């Protein structure tokens, strides 16, 4: 990955990309993340705006449509790759955790 580009995704980053597998506008993303994670992950408007700008600049997402006051965003192929890699990474973490923690519980 190029220098300065997103490496491991933070939780808000991960959920924004995940939600943008379908087109959403800014406030829709905030609501969707809230309901999807049952309020566990909250994304503030400033944080969301900053991350959307960053992802757009890094071509992880693109503008899908521009309405009167709202833009909708959607994930790009590159963004999907990053999301997929993060998903694989998280799965490996869970598997590794499982191997050790389950063994501990069994012994």
């Amino acid at each position: 990955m190029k220098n300065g580009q997103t490496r491991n995704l933070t939780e808000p980053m991960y959920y924004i990309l995940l939600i943008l597998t379908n087109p959403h506008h800014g406030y829709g993303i905030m609501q969707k993340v809230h309901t999807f994670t049952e309020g566990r992950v909250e994304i503030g408007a400033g944080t969301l705006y900053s991350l959307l700008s960053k992802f757009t600049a890094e071509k992880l997402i693109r503008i899908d449509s521009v309405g009167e006051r709202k833009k909708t965003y959607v994930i790009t192929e590159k963004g999907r790759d990053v999301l997929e890699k993060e998903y694989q990474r998280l799965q490996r973490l869970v598997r590794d955790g499982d191997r050790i923690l389950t063994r501990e519980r069994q012994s």
Partner: protein
Amino acid sequence: MKSKEKRKRVAWNIFELDYKAMEVYLEDMALRGWMLKETNLFYATFERTDPKKVHFTVDVFEIPKYKGEKDPVEAKEYRDLCEAAGWNYIDGKGYLQFFYSEAEKPPKPIQTDLETEARIVSTSIWNRRVASVIVSILILTSLLFSHFPIGPENLMNNTNTLLALMLPLFWVYLIVVLVYLVLVRYQMQKKVDRQEIFESRNYGKARKRAWFLGVIPLFLGVSFAAGMLGDLLGGNQGIVIALVGTPVIILATHLASRWIQKDQQIKNDNLLYNGLTIVLLLLILILPPSMIIGEKGRGQGPLPEKYPLLSGGPWGDFEEEAAEEFRYYTQSSLLVPEYYEVRYPVNQQEGIYNYAYYRAISPGVAEYLYERLLDERGQDFREDHPINSLWDVERIGFIGSRNHVFILQDDKILQIRGNLDFRDEELIEDVERLFFRSSQQEGVIVTSP
């Protein structure tokens, strides 16, 4: 009964990096019946309302990298998002954006990711402040080298004297500010690492911090202004015009670039703005102040009667027809309250001679000035030199080919340059009588016997 004030302005005596402390202040004002209505870089305007509990949030918004557009589309998008989340927009102050909510429970914070917030604060405020402080330190360091020891030119007007005396103080101040900025960034990173929130900061402490770090530039600014005023009243307009000219040209550049971009609807005008600024700054640096304000910018013309005119005898005859070429310059400062310089051609065969007279506030300052004048290229006559026994003065020195002599007596210095015999008794008598024996020179003209 006196009607109640409806609006009031309060100056922001706080650093941008303490923006979280502003929230506390604004909430306190609302509780006291003052609601923020608008704000700019210098002050906040409040309007009288019923005292109420209001939640405020001050956020840092990364302004897109072009200037001039008052309300770029990105800023609107950002505000719309914040408003959709329940934060009502009030106004912006540079990078700082002010929102409020009257809901009982405050809406979700605008920034929820510490790392993102730290990055925004760093790129928007911290990096710029650090860069400007480092550039200022570098400029001041070079000025320190060029201004010390304080040279005769700097002693001759209040503005330059104060500037030279205050440079070290300002240099230390900038180092303190740099250390403070580094500490703020370190603490911010520590909070990110520990996943602690950037809580609202103590407003009282923030104000004290701003006062502590702001009092030095304020003191410097007031002293500098007083120095310039003193020079202006004392007739040294040249230095004032030269110093005031620089900020005026910078302001003109800024206004011109704003006007051009408004006229042509240029969005990305960084190049234009920076280009204009660099060209004008280079012009200022290349053009000596004398080109802007005329030669020395001080009094010129016939010598006023109160200054002694050396003419006749060993000085040669002053020629009336040469009067047009006659020049005198006067200047004064707190440290050297009396100074004038006279230049005129005596006659074509003997060439030109000139002299300068200095009276300092004390013999100590006079000696310091004398040494600085000699520092440049000269030295005292050796103790066993016959000239020492001829002159009844404290010190006498010369530069180069000994046709440029410096004389120190009490708080006075006389500098004479010309093809003269400085061992001539008549010449010595004239100088000692006119400049060192009389307490006040009043319309004395030496004429040939």
